[in-house]
């Protein structure tokens, strides 16, 4: 595994996950909210290319047959092969004449794959939004501290140190619990993003401060000052642009932490509400009991969370602690 290959794999994985999240409407095999009472805890329907007689075909699936409703036993109907249709009726992949659940269904008979794909939009969306807000706040606070120095600098950096020292998830849970619990999904999205931004900004602020304080001594900054540029102008036009590369790296560090934080919050019931298919909510529904043994495919959101974090870790290849 060379350096280049790992980075490439990470980029492809991250690109794939992001593309899926963006186009979730057409990738999903069903509406994530619809329930199929004939398919409760149905197993994943895998794509086949070889039929029982050993001949190769274009990708197809076998429809499911309900054997026993009480025991929730299903079997593949080997007599019918349903061709997978690509880019058909506005869906990336679909089959005619039967329901297709690529990752099975949950305890309410909902399509796990559809929920997973829609969840990508929510879970990654909230993480990305929070990271963006955290970086803006961090850049401004760090910029002010670095450019002005003195008492403001001391105070801002002390606060940053304090927030960095605390384990993020406890701060997130405490802040979230202190805010009104019953909100609309949109309000919840922004509440969670705001809570995460509060945890994330100090790390960006410290780095930005260091860069700005160093850049301030350089000749171009001296020249800008000599030309009569004010402090604010100097900061916004000349010093902050120097932190771009640093901020980009910070964004990729914050993302995995926020993806995990959303999952944890939703898992314990302080994140997205039950009806919303975020990855954390799906994990909560998977529960920790016997249903896992019966339907291990309910852990798909766990795989999705890990894959997202892995893609970023591969991309960065910098050793860091789990969030």
């Amino acid at each position: 595994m060379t350096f280049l290959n790992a980075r490439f794999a990470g980029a492809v994985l991250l690109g794939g996950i992001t593309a899926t999240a963006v186009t979730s409407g057409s990738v999903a095999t069903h509406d994530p909210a619809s329930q199929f009472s004939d398919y409760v805890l149905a197993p994943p329907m895998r794509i086949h290319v070889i039929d029982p007689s050993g001949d190769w075909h274009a990708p197809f699936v076998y429809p499911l047959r309900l054997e026993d409703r009480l025991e929730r036993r299903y079997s593949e109907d080997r007599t019918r092969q349903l061709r997978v249709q690509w880019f058909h009726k506005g869906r990336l992949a679909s089959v005619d004449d039967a329901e297709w659940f690529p990752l099975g269904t949950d305890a309410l008979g909902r399509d796990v794959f559809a929920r997973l794909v829609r969840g990508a939009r929510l879970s990654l969306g909230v993480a990305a939004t929070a990271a963006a807000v955290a970086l803006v706040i961090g850049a401004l606070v760090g910029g002010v501290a670095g450019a002005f120095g003195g008492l403001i600098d001391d105070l801002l950096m002390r606060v940053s140190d304090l927030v960095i020292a605390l384990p993020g998830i406890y701060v997130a849970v405490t802040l979230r619990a202190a805010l009104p619990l019953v909100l609309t999904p949109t309000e919840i999205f922004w509440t969670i993003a705001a809570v995460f931004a509060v945890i994330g900004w100090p790390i960006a602020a410290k780095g930005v401060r260091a860069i700005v304080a160093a850049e301030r001594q350089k000749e171009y900054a001296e020249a800008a000052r000599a030309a009569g540029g004010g402090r604010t102008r100097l900061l916004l036009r000349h010093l902050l642009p120097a932190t771009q590369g640093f901020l980009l790296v910070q964004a990729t560090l914050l993302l995995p932490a926020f993806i995990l934080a959303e999952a944890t919050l939703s898992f314990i019931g302080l994140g997205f509400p039950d009806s919303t298919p975020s990855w954390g909510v799906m994990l909560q529904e998977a529960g920790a009991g016997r249903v896992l043994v019966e339907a291990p495919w309910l852990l798909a959101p766990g795989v999705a969370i890990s894959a997202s974090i892995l893609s970023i870790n591969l991309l960065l290849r910098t050793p860091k602690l789990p969030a």
Partner: protein
Amino acid sequence: MHRSLAIFLAKRFLQAVLLVVFVSSAALLLVRLAPGDHLSSFDTDPAVVAAERHRLGLDRPFAVQYVEWLGRAVRLDFGESLKYRRPVTFLVTERAGNTILLGTSALVLATLIGLPLGVITGSRRAGAFATIARALSVLVLSVPPLVTSFALLLLALTTGWLPVGGIGHTSESGNWLTIVVARARYLVLPTLALALPIAASLERLQSRAMQDALEEPCIRAVLGRGLSAERVIWRHALRMSLAPVVGVFGAVVGSVLSGSFAVEIIMSWPGLGALMYEALVDRDLFLAAGCAAAGSVFLATGVLAGDVALAVIDPRVGDTA
């Protein structure tokens, strides 16, 4: 002890105390500011609720409550839990013990796996073992305790090898050895779930530090003099490479605490994280503050231990402070 080192550690100790005071005060304030309190969630006679509020002192201004709480907290009396009607100190110490047990065993396991592996992968760039170990740790590093817990639960439920959930019965009969073994069996799953990602990140950190140490001129010099590579790696380079890893020990303790939150809730391990969560949701003012105090004591102790260890390993620490 060197004087500057003593000053350095005294400073850090003061910071730790401030951290604990700040965190528990902030938790108290946040829960107090949150809409509703524990008593308002019951559908009882308003007069009864008012009387209960008065008994607990919740009807007075927050500033008065806070000063009184702080005065008692200094004597380790954190008030009474609104839900359990028992002293917070009692509840917290009971749960904190479980978290210490889980956290310490995970920390020890992660160190025992992560550090030696990191030394090997850091000193040997090529080779099948190092390549596999590196790839595996990038993979494991990406699976957070939230997900490892689920995966291990599934494994345990399918195979039946290990008991799932809880800490086992406290009143088991038999000699002490059978009790210890019985309890230890319940500890295995949560410990693994918590330790694996941390072991992987320690491996990555140690590996990088080892690579850097091996490029230092002094290490090249002893290698040039003909000391065996094994001796140089495990004796000299290891000691040098430990400093950056021990330097992040505080952050490691932080991630143990963070990780144990999810593990405790999924695995029904009755620890501090689970209790704190319960207190927050129930708006159990004093219990939440007590949990925050205990958690920040753990964190501060971990950071302090890291500082002391760093001072022992790296003689330059005291001088720069």
